[in-house]
């Protein structure tokens, strides 16, 4: 099909043909076209089907407010549904398809819904399908969802790349129309850092849609020159294809830049970028949006907004029909008729709802051959797939295939409301304008502020920008505004034609009619928010940009209130749809969050270690050896080998906090429940830290390296939380203490070396001048040493496994080297690396508490460490730990458990019930926290809390696993399964 509706060159590049397809049919357009303008040029008016009634729908607008012409772009995984044809920049090979129909677009089987419309009025699903109850989810809802809706997702992973970023400016100008360009230029010439963002690919706003003259040149030429000047300035960033979609706190704005949507392929580059823009000031110059008038059957393809018809003519050189009519309540409609006639288009009728419009006298002579009806209204239309005729209230039927409707313009106030700002009503323009409670730093100018005419809007933008830059300390440049006209903009509010018999549509996207709004009111929904939820008015991709104000007027009529008193719904971000992919940005798959590697990671990989995520850390879980077919084989071997000879585990992940200062000891005394003031230099002590409420917070060891220098270790999970807690204590609770903290977790590669041969192994590594014999370096000793010929190291004689054990630390850059050297040195002892599983088994065998026991619900007393909380000193949580309910006689105690039937495994999480009692919450005695198979005892063992546990040794209770419904008899035993006297670790 040739482009029969192309009547001029507009601002497009007619030298460059572009081929594209719609519903598989090939079309041609030009560079600079949108999909909508190219389809109109090819006389393709039927674009989609409506949401509920499957009514044929065409193009209504020429911008992002489009409610009707939603298409699916591209195919397969790249398919993007619900794309507005009016904003899609045409590119070669573009494939678009229509949505929401069964069968072809022209003959949609679901159009039967339209015949059933009397039964499908607003809120019908609230009133019907009430019974039988079970049918709702299984039958009714699936049917409704299948027969209504917009586009469909591909259900494949999005293959495109997205990015995000951060921008800063003195002034953010939102919208690059005449006011935006003026504001940006004023600010930029003063030297301020300016960001100018606009959603269109061609900046200039309505200057590209109109025939305005500025300083004697065409408005679009002035825009082009201004953009060129701005682009050339170092202090300006011009962002086309960028929608500022949200205004957030502190001058922060969200913006979506569409980088490659206008190209056939992204070529691996980000398709879209989600920007966070930090601004000192902002000017909203987002213009205004035209709205329709509601009358019978006003939704047929070919019925469009008058401003859009003008845009297609002036910018794209496209006439929206061969016989065009205009229906308006304001002067702007006359401009459409004038421009079309100037281009040679056939305007058959000009209908103004005002009988005494002043503009008519001036314009009527220019509209020769046009049927001019003043004080008239369009009350009905005909034509199934495209408009064929209109009927007016004076009884005329006019053959026409395009009706340009103008119900006036609504300022785009949305971003002014994102922080709960309320717009106010202006009767003279019949529209809402920004209220006084704007987001901090924001100003508004141009038609977004209700200043609807060209020159006045530019003058306002210039003045506002000048004041803002002055306010920020810049000297405004002295330049004159271009000479421009103030076009006629008179309006007499007129919202819907009462004499219409057919359904009069307000919200095209959600199929909401005047009757629906009246019904909503009749049924008691008096608030606009209720109206919105009941009728779905103003929802979905367009958020009612063209529908809200006309619908409010109908509601105001129903309630007898003014539109201002009726109010609007709250506008929230985003202004236009933002793809979920863009919100996710890079944070997908493996890039969802960072990964932390231990110093021995590379070596562990070489050993074939199986890794586990512990927070962000990747830790070796176990090290399988050839022939081992099950993880338990590896873990059992690692445990047995360590207890028999020696094993090595990377424990770098434990938090390490360097504590220095003349008050460091006193500080630790307050932070820990037990005393640290008298800890000798060269000694390490186990400590338990309480929260302010007396609950156990974390545990670990702290070594005193010198009089004023301590090194604290925390659990891996709580490393950050403990550091933060201590900083709070230091800075806020005790600011007069001389103490300083810094994390040293990353600084030191630390390994646990455990087992009877651990000392012998280390003696091969530690430089000879350091005596680490039992006498010279006893249990809980610590010190600075050197290893391997002078490498600085720290040695701590501490044990989590219950064996003779050490932790040795070297600067992280030597971590890889140290594990290799220790494994080499340990060959003669049959050394084994062990992972977190074996670590866990050995600590359970020893009865040491870990994260499962320090769960944020337990006290030091529960853990059997009650006596550690010194009453001779004050510490965080000390007083609160004495609360009565935390010290009941039948309180919990940490004990060990073994299955009565040793062939059975214990279940972590099982709750304990006294034998003979029912497994109910009332009879709950406690719970199993940790279980493992002990290769040393050759059966399952566990740790857990049970009431009065320490007094119930030997008692058999029931462990009831409520998740699986399994129960088993377990015996209460000491939590110290291995070496209860602690002889090994002191050996």
């Amino acid at each position: 099909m040739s482009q029969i509706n192309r009547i001029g060159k507009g601002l497009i590049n007619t030298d460059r043909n572009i081929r594209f397809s719609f519903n598989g049919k090939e079309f041609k357009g030009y560079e600079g076209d949108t999909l909508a303008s190219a389809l109109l040029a090819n006389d393709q008016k039927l674009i989609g089907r409506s949401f509920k009634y499957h009514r044929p729908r065409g193009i209504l607008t020429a911008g992002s407010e489009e409610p009707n012409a939603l298409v699916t772009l591209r195919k397969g995984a790249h398919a993007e549904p619900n794309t507005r044809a009016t904003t899609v920049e045409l590119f070669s090979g573009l494939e678009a398809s229509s949505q929401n129909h069964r069968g072809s677009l022209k003959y949609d089987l679901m159009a039967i819904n339209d015949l059933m419309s009397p039964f499908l009025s607003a809120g019908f699903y609230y009133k019907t399908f009430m019974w039988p109850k079970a049918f709702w989810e299984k039958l009714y809802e699936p049917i409704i969802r299948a027969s209504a809706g917009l586009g469909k997702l591909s259900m494949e992973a999005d293959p495109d790349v997205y990015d995000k970023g951060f921008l800063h400016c003195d002034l953010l100008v939102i919208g690059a129309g005449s006011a935006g360009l003026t504001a940006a230029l004023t600010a930029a010439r003063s030297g301020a850092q300016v960001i100018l963002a606009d959603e269109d690919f061609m900046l200039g706003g309505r200057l590209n849609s109109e025939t305005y003259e500025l300083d004697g040149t065409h408005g679009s030429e002035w825009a082009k020159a201004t953009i060129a000047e701005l682009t050339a300035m170092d202090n300006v960033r011009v962002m086309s294809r960028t929608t500022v979609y949200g205004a957030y706190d502190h001058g922060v704005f969200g913006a979506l830049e569409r980088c490659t949507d206008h190209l056939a392929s992204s070529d691996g580059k980000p398709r879209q970028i989600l920007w966070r823009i930090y601004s000192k000031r902002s000017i909203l110059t987002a213009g205004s949006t035209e709205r329709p008038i509601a009358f019978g059957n006003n939704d047929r393809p070919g019925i469009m907004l008058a401003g859009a018809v003008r845009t297609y003519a002036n910018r794209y050189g496209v006439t929206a029909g061969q016989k065009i009519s205009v229906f308006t309540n304001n002067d702007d409609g006359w401009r459409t008729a004038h421009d079309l006639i100037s281009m040679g288009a056939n305007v058959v009728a000009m209908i103004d709802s005002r009988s005494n419009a002043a503009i008519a006298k001036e314009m009527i002579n220019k509209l020769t051959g046009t049927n001019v009806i003043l004080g008239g209204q369009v009350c009905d239309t005909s034509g199934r797939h495209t408009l064929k005729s209109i009927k007016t209230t004076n009884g005329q039927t006019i053959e026409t295939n395009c009706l340009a409707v103008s119900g006036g313009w609504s300022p785009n106030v949305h971003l002014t409301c994102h922080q709960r700002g309320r717009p106010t009503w202006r009767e003279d323009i019949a529209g809402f304008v920004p209220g006084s409670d704007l987001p901090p730093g924001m100003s508004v100018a141009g038609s977004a502020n209700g200043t609807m005419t060209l020159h006045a809007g530019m003058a306002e933008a210039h003045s506002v920008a000048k004041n803002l830059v002055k306010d920020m300390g810049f000297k405004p440049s002295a330049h004159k505004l271009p000479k421009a006209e103030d076009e006629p903009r008179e309006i007499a509010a007129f919202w819907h034609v009462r004499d219409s018999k057919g359904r009069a549509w307000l919200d095209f996207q959600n199929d909401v009619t005047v009757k629906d709004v009246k019904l909503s009111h009749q049924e008691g929904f008096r608030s606009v928010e209720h109206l919105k939820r009941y009728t779905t008015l103003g929802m979905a991709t367009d958020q009612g940009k063209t529908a809200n104000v006309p619908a409010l007027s109908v509601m105001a009529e129903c309630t007898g209130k003014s539109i201002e008193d009726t109010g609007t719904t709250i506008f929230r971000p985003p202004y236009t749809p933002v793809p979920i992919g863009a919100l996710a940005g890079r944070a997908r798959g493996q890039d969802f969050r960072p990964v932390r590697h231990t110093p021995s990671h590379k070596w562990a990989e070489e050993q074939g270690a199986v890794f586990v995520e512990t927070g962000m850390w990747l830790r070796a879980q176990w090290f399988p050896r050839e022939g081992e077919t099950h993880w338990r084989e590896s873990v059992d071997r690692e445990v047995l080998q360590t207890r028999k000879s020696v094993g090595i585990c990377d424990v770098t992940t434990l938090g390490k906090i360097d504590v220095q200062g003349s008050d460091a000891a006193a500080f630790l005394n307050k932070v820990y429940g037990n005393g640290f003031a008298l800890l000798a230099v060269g000694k390490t002590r186990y400590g338990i830290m309480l929260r302010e409420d007396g609950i156990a917070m974390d545990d670990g060891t702290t070594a005193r390296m010198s009089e004023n220098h301590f090194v604290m270790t925390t659990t891996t999970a709580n490393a950050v939380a403990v550091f933060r807690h201590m900083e709070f204590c230091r800075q806020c609770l005790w600011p007069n203490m001389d103490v300083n903290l810094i994390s040293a977790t990353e600084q030191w590669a630390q390994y646990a070396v455990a087992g009877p041969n651990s000392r012998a192994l280390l003696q091969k590594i530690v430089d000879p001048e350091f005596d680490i014999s039992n006498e010279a370096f006893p249990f809980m000793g610590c010190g600075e040493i050197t290893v391997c010929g002078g490498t600085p190291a720290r040695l701590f004689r501490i044990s989590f496994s219950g064996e003779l054990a050490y932790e040795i630390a070297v600067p992280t850059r030597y971590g890889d080297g140290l594990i290799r050297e220790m494994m080499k040195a340990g060959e003669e002892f049959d050394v084994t690396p062990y992972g977190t599983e074996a670590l866990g088994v050995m600590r359970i065998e020893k009865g040491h508490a870990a994260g499962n026991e320090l769960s944020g619900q337990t006290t030091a007393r529960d853990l059997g460490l009650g006596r550690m909380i010194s009453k001779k000193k004050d510490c965080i949580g000390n007083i609160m730990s004495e609360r009565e309910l935390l010290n009941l006689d039948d309180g919990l105690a940490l004990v060990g458990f073994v299955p009565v039937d040793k062939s059975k495994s214990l279940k972590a999480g099982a709750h304990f019930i006294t034998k003979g009692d029912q497994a109910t919450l009332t009879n709950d005695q406690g719970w199993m926290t940790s279980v493992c198979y002990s290769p040393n005892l050759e059966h399952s063992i566990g740790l857990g809390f049970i009431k009065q546990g320490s007094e119930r040794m030997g008692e058999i209770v029931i462990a009831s696993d409520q998740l699986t419904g399994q129960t088993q008899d377990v015996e209460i035993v000491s939590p110290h399964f291995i070496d209860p006297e602690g002889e090994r670790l002191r050996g």
Partner: protein
Amino acid sequence: MAKSTLHATSALNGFHQTWDGVELSEVTNKALVSIAVPLKGEAQFQTAMKKAFEADVPETGASSFSKDKSKQFLGLQKDQLFAVFDREDDYPTSVISEALSDKGYYTDQSDSWVVLRLQGIKCRKALERICPLNLHQDVFAINEVARTTMEHLAAIIVRDDKDSFILMSPRSSAHSFLHAIETSVKNIS
């Protein structure tokens, strides 16, 4: 008895790559020592800095240099700074403690951070994608320093030349940090 010496490895094996307008390389030869100023010891510390290095104590966000330019002091927060200098041995804290004696508290941080230099005319474009700070040349001057986050990771950023930035982030997540920067560079090139 110890016979072999330990081999040191950098976090990213000395990574270095160039793209059009951007160069990214790991800095492996620097010592970083954290210096904390004792409570009510500010004046003595200032005097010690003057005496030892003829350097001012930098304000938070600024940096100062020793007279011979061999040491840079980064003001990271109130009463805390990092000394940055060429690493000559495994005892960088002694370099500072010998000069300032007991006027501060010192902690070796040389192995805590991966240090990268991002330079070239497009380096700011790349940083826009991950760094929330305003790095405009008039706002973030040469030798200024800031703590921030990049891709969920803690980071320290220092502008060390017209179009050059030093980026530091915890060493354990060095590969993630590098990946984030590389992705940014690739996305703008």
